[in-house]
């Protein structure tokens, strides 16, 4: 008998008892829907977290100064060095940076150095805009991955010459010169700010596109509303900031960008060791230490994977229960239809075609249930993701997997009842009361 005839017959049979068919399907629908919803939300969450972690820099290794200390067997931290405040000779220096670049070569893609100068209101007559003035070296600037809307980024020449130039955000321009201000018109104008007893003034050479994501990522908090006069960064050459701070090239911390992602953790250890051997061996109180985000990212990725798997396993149990429901109904249905099976055999149905008929019936239930569950699960998954602020895209693989799974379930849970039906002796089936 043809497969298409079998499918037609199965659909006919399932239509004849709509309520029962629906209730049987419900188990599969709920099972598939919950698995798909969890996978969708989980994927969205993982992707979003990974994206933001990655954009913060998997390759970035932050170095800072810390008290010399060791940890004893009981986990107590013992300070072996002298306890005192930091003085100029403790800080990282440009010499150290040069020495690192020379020693590590290609393993270091760049060193990003920055200094925060001041926060406050930049004013222009009555108008004002909140800004944070930050001095960045050229590598730190490229790390920001700014989109320049007008003018040009701060050049290496400006960096070397300590030119008093600045990059401001488009928000700054809007706040200062009105919503529809021409970005080009502000070039060569000045950013002026008074903070405490200091007066800062820089020539605008470029306008960058303010990115809310970047801001959120950097400060850890979302800005509220676009109309608000929110604080944006104003970038100036690092040397200019250092001069304004009256400090020589001294850094409390710096960020090394590893040449390859794979090397980040190792490089962190190597640089720490190098710095401590060459520059901090004789320091009585301080030593260098590093932090690489890579290990964290890897760990949180693994954690989320495990979590997703665990929740999926729980959801899979509901799928299993649904499958057993299908099997149960098939067994009941076959008992009820014993005479029908006997009649079909009398009319010439082979054991194989009887088996086929019931397997296909189970398969159709599971497949239709699976499709409905998949749609429902995707909708729920996307809705939940949206609610908690992630962008979800139902993956093709989860769609394919859920369809294959539900078909597999149909065959698996339909097989036993179908074989039972096929094995019936025709005359016993016909005589069944």
């Amino acid at each position: 008998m043809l497969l298409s005839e079998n499918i037609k017959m199965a659909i006919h049979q399932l239509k004849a008892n709509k309520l029962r068919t629906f209730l049987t399907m419900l188990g599969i629908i709920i099972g598939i829907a919950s698995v798909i919803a969890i996978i969708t939300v989980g994927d969205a969450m993982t992707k979003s977290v990974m994206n933001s972690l990655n954009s913060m820099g998997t390759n970035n290794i932050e170095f800072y100064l810390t008290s010399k200390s060791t940890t004893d067997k009981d986990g107590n931290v013992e300070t072996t060095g002298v306890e005192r405040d930091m003085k100029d000779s403790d800080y990282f220096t440009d010499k150290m940076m040069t020495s690192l670049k020379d020693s590590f070569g290609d393993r270091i893609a760049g060193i990003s150095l920055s200094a925060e100068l001041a926060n406050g209101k930049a004013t222009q007559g009555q108008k004002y805009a909140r800004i944070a003035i930050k001095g960045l070296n050229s590598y730190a600037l490229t790390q920001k991955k700014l989109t320049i809307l007008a003018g040009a980024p701060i050049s290496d020449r400006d960096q070397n010459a300590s030119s008093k130039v600045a990059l401001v955000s488009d928000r700054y321009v809007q706040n200062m010169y009105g919503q529809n201000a021409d970005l080009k018109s502000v070039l060569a104008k000045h950013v002026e700010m008074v903070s405490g007893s200091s007066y800062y003034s820089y020539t605008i050479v470029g306008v960058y596109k303010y990115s809310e994501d970047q801001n959120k990522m950097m400060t850890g908090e979302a800005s509220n509303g676009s109309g608000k006069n929110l604080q944006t960064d104003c970038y100036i050459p690092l040397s200019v900031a250092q001069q304004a701070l009256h400090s020589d090239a001294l850094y409390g911390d710096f960020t090394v960008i590893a040449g390859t992602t794979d090397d980040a953790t190792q490089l962190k250890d190597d640089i720490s060791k190098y710095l401590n051997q060459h520059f901090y061996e004789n320091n009585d109180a301080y030593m260098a230490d590093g932090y690489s985000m890579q290990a964290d990212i890897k760990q949180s990725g693994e954690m989320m994977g495990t979590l997703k798997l665990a929740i999926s396993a729980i959801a899979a149990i509901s799928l299993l229960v649904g499958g057993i429901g299908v099997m149960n109904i098939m067994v009941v249905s076959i008992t009820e239809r014993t005479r029908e099976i006997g009649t079909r055999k009398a009319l010439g149905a082979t054991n194989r075609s009887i088996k086929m008929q019931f397997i296909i019936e189970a398969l159709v239930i599971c497949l239709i249930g699976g499709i409905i569950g998949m749609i429902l699960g995707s909708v729920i998954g996307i809705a939940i993701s949206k609610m908690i602020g992630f962008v979800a895209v139902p993956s093709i693989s989860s769609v394919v997997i859920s369809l294959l799974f539900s078909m597999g379930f149909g065959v698996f849970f339909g097989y036993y009842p179908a074989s039972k039906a096929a094995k019936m002796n025709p005359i016993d089936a016909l005589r069944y009361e």
Partner: protein
Amino acid sequence: MPTNIKPVTNADTSPVIDMTGIKKSFYIGTKNELEVLHGIDLTVMPGEFLSIVGQSGSGKSTLMNIIGLLDKPTSGSYILNSSDISLDSDEDTSHIRNKEIGFVFQTYNLIPRMSALKNIELPMLYAGVHGKARKERAEELLELVGMTERMQHTPDELSGGQKQRVAIARALSNNPSIILADEPTGALDSKTGHVIMDIFHKLNEEKGITVVLITHSHELASETQRIVTLSDGLFIDNPELSYSDNMTKGI
């Protein structure tokens, strides 16, 4: 004494059914074995209309089920259309049931929720006949039994007599060589019973189909070419004996 009652006609052609020494036992419990048929010899020639009569419990249905390959004899040989069926696999017996035998049951046994047309198409479906040919043949058969207007009706929308007519049409769908009817009129009033019997007679006379009929009605049995009487699992010579009491009820 078992008696092999020889057919009157078609003596020169080979029989449709050729049974010798058919025994059938049922196992009830572990020790008790109930022998229902004690060694039946039966020969049916093509084109015959045979009726099997006998008291309730004498083994008529048991014999019919063996003829129709729904059950296997415990011992004895059964040759159907010149081939020994005792060794056939499930696949083969299904195939023979499908092509060679048309069943008509007392309880109609139409598949519920399937239209009359679809019910008639079913044996053709198992035979692998394609859609259009199947439908045409089913319509033809519905016309033959006078049920054309009820084509799309499901069994629960039909009367007993109508159901049986659909069942007969279904039995005919693959052009079987024998029709086996186990008390086809048993659940019908005598007038409707006659309508059904007329169809069998018409099929037998006009199409030359072999019919084996089980009935409790002396009147209906007497209309057929040959009557065999079963009594306690054996054919007996004198039908008069077995008709004495319960046969009169059927008339």
